[in-house]
């Protein structure tokens, strides 16, 4: 490659032309003025005094990508909405121009000689169909070096993106023409190695897989929660008892203890189990701290009903209710249990009390350090709600004709 050294007519700094005869504009690396590369004296097209940023890959760098040596001759930064990316213009005297797009990962973009056939959101290219995923207006925010068109800050183009098999098609429509390019992702680390820049630790996928990105992040967070859960102490039984509850009889009271809760705060589960037949047992529990006499009440109900109707046999009710108590402080506790049984149907207000029919044994188990599964479920909902919304929007967007 022959490099021509010329002088910027605006600031007098040296300007290197790396693809003379193939480019139309060059932006002075010192003052940012846009110069006419097609004229020998570099006529001033647009004066600028903007302070310059330095691209990560320096202009004039040379590296082989895909077995072809490329010179970096131009650099521009673009944005759409609140997102931005940068593009390097690469040049090879025999291969022409390519764009190296950096949007968190690197893409090598080649201009297409033949425009794909577009029908609705589908584009036909290279014998296959590409699906439209996004349309937006992209603006040039910063520019440096040589270009084969007269690029300037503020230039806007309408972009339509299509995706297919990991690659992308992009059409850019400006005031004068529409150009198509195909973007192929560069192998991770290959560009960094070729140009000797720091390796990217994470690669961001393109817009069309926005929901996938969120899904991956949510999955990583969910896996982190699972790993954290592995370190939780296992649930441990701290007490068990059996009480005989007369159906339609008086309230039975019993106390079990001490129940030792060694952690600063812990979840406690009290599970009762009874064999019931059209009966219910009201269970009032009260955990009482032996030292402070602080009490923590919770009430439950064991019940089971069955019968027949026009659709056959029915049954309902939970004869094995499990009650959970949250954040019980450290201490030695007594559990006071009050149980009262009754049969269904209950007698009316003016009817005589129902006779005691039988006595039902109720087994009560108390466990500490229980794992609240609902916390995990709630966290999963919080993590995956937004990715699912994005997925639904993406699906809905596909159905819209006016994309």
């Amino acid at each position, binding site marked *: 490659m022959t490099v021509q050294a010329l002088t910027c007519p605006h600031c007098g700094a040296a300007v290197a032309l790396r693809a003379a005869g193939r480019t139309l504009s060059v932006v002075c690396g010192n003052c940012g003025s846009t110069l006419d590369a097609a004229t020998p004296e570099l006529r001033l097209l647009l004066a600028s005094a903007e302070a310059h940023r330095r691209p990560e890959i320096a202009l004039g760098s040379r590296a082989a990508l895909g077995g072809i040596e490329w010179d970096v001759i131009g650099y521009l930064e673009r944005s759409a909405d609140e997102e931005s990316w940068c593009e390097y213009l690469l040049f090879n005297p025999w291969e022409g121009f390519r*764009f190296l797009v950096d949007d968190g990962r690197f893409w090598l973009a080649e201009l297409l000689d033949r425009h794909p056939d577009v029908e609705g959101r589908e584009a036909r290219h290279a014998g296959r169909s590409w699906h439209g995923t996004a349309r937006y207006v992209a603006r040039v925010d910063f520019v440096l070096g040589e270009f084969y068109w007269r690029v300037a800050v503020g230039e806007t183009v309408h972009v339509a993106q299509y995706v297919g098999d990991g690659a992308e098609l992009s059409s850019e429509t400006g005031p004068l023409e529409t150009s198509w390019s195909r973007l192929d992702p560069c192998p991770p680390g290959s560009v960094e190695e070729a140009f000797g820049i720091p390796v990217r630790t994470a690669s961001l996928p393109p817009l069309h897989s926005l929901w996938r990105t969120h899904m991956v992040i949510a999955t990583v967070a969910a896996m982190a*929660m699972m790993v954290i859960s592995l370190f939780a102490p296992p649930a441990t039984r701290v007490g068990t008892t059996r009480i005989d509850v007369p159906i339609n009889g008086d309230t039975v009271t019993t106390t079990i203890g001490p129940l030792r809760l060694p952690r600063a*705060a812990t979840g406690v589960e009290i599970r009762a189990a009874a064999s019931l037949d059209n009966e219910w047992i009201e269970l009032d529990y009260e955990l009482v701290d032996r030292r402070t006499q602080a009490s923590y009440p919770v*009430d439950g109900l064991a019940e089971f009903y069955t019968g027949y109707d026009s659709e056959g046999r029915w049954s*309902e009710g939970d004869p094995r209710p499990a009650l959970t108590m949250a*954040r019980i402080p450290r201490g030695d506790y007594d559990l006071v249990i009050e149980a009262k049984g009754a049969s269904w149907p209950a007698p009316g207000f003016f009817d005589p009390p129902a006779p005691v029919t039988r006595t039902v044994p109720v087994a009560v188990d108390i466990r500490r350090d229980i794992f*609240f599964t609902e*916390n995990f479920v*709630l966290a999963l909902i919080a993590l995956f709600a937004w990715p699912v919304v994005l997925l639904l929007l993406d699906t809905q967007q596909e159905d819209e004709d006016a994309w």
Partner: protein
Amino acid sequence: MVRRPAILLFVLWCLVVVVLFTWALVNGTSPLADGPTGGGGSSYGARGPRHK
């Protein structure tokens, strides 16, 4: 040509969720526990089957 998705907020949100989950795990608490500091429901109410 290609837009970079703005995902930082979502990453922060996921961190908040994981931290809250861990806090609840360490403190043995849940907003849906039946008592005494959970927000679960009471068993008081009508007795008998709801079947009609």
